[in-house]
């Protein structure tokens, strides 16, 4: 049963990702990106990472794609009919397929796990404890990074002379 869900979600996610990359209309790309993120959130649920799935939906689906759609509306002439790919499609396809093949080969052959996977755990409370004990320094650095990104985005997007 889990296998069925996994393959359905995996096919859905990768198909949506392909649509993101190949769609000629960039709004279609952004909407396909929402579906791809939702598929990844489903994969997280299958991996017993409920908190990460919720974070994925909140931040990626609710935040980043909306931001992307706003930027698309503000900048792109959607019905321009111009070429969407640059002239290095062939070389890029070779590089991307080669990298993917190496990664898939490595994940099928290269990684052998000795031992049993740990039992299902209480993830959300454990994550909160880890973030405030073992990983407290990167946690604080991340907050400074977010502040810097917020200030930087405001300054960059502001018009000159205001």
């Amino acid at each position, binding site marked *: 049963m889990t296998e069925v869900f996994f393959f359905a979600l995996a096919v859905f996610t990768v198909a949506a990702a392909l649509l993101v990359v190949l769609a000629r209309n960039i709004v279609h790309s952004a909407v396909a990106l929402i579906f791809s993120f939702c598929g990844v959130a489903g994969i997280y649920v299958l991996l017993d990472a409920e908190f990460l799935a919720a974070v994925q939906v909140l931040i990626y689906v609710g935040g980043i794609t909306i931001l992307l759609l706003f930027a698309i509306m*503000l900048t792109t002439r959607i019905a321009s009919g111009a070429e969407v790919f640059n002239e290095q*499609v062939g070389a890029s396809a070779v590089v991307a397929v080669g990298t*993917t093949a190496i990664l898939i080969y490595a994940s099928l052959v290269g990684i052998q*796990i000795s031992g049993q996977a740990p039992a299902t755990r209480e993830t959300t409370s454990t994550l909160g404890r880890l973030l405030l004990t073992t990983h407290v320094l990167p946690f604080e650095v991340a907050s400074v990074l977010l502040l810097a990104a917020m200030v930087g985005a405001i300054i960059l997007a502001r018009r000159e002379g205001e």
Partner: protein
Amino acid sequence: MIPLSYYLTLGALLFGVGMFGALTRRNAIAILMAVELMLNGVNVNFIALSRYLPNSTLDGQVFAIFVITVAAAEAAVGLAIVLGLYRNFKTVNVDEINLMKW
């Protein structure tokens, strides 16, 4: 239980698809979307390994949270730069913007 390699393969596929998009698309926003796909592929790997490795604490998931944080910051700053580009050049196609090209 699903083998670990299935999840790693899914992560590799997402990474490869995003890589192709980041290398070929002309629109800067499309490139940002492709980069987000690549980051998602990486996150799938992190979480799968944190689930399957014996004696693993949840460090993989903590790292995935940091990746998501950095991705959000990257999207905000990147889109602000795209807006600035559009204001100055009236285009967001990266192959037409060559002010700093040698």
